[in-house]
């Protein structure tokens, strides 16, 4: 199956990137693509528990990611250094994900070949 890595790099509400990254995963998952989702840099904030952007008239993004398993998307990777630099741990996140270092991220991107950075 064709591999695709979707990389979340940005904070969830400052731009549309994370929301559209999420929408892309939902949109392409049904077309027999083997999708890995990576969270790096400010992208790790997309997974933080208890997001409430209601004062921005926006919908919370974090709760959507655990539902991606219903679309057959099960590979989630979070960059360890990005988490640590922001004072976060796996317990702060809305879902279980594999915590990986930079070398492993590089290896995943190289193995998958096609990368969609959001």
């Amino acid at each position: 199956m064709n591999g695709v890595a979707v990389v979340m790099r940005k904070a969830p509400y400052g731009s549309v990137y994370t929301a559209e990254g999420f929408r892309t995963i939902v949109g392409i998952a049904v077309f027999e693509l083997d999708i890995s989702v990576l969270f790096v840099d400010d992208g790790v904030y997309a997974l933080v528990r208890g997001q409430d952007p209601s004062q921005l008239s926006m919908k919370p993004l974090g709760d959507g990611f655990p539902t991606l398993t219903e679309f057959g998307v099960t590979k989630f990777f979070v960059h360890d250094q990005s988490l640590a630099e922001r004072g976060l741990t796996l317990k702060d996140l809305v879902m279980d994900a594999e915590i990986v270092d930079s070398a492993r991220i590089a290896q995943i991107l190289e193995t998958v070949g096609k990368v969609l950075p959001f």
Partner: protein
Amino acid sequence: MKMGILVLEGPYQHQAADSAYHFVKAAQARGHQIVGIFLYTDAVNNANRFIDPPGERNIAKRFDDLAAQGIPVVACTACAKFRGLRPDLKTEHVRLSGLGSLAQYLRDADRFVTFGD
């Protein structure tokens, strides 16, 4: 080699649309095939046929010309709706379609390149 392209930024504000165009031209000049260009999020604005910059490069015309050559150039239907880009405002050869087209280009391409912020 077969290449797919994703563009995530609109015209003039950001270099992404220009870079995508120049990349496609350079790839073609080297004999590569472009399987499709997907205009997503603000990039749908690169398909507005009323873009008319006095004395400057016309970014909408560039993408329309690529589409006229036979390269599939697709603007995301939902993104167009969000931005008021009605079908009658769209350049002639760019098509409106959904993320299925992006999935198709991802499958067809040997290499896939994203131009965004």
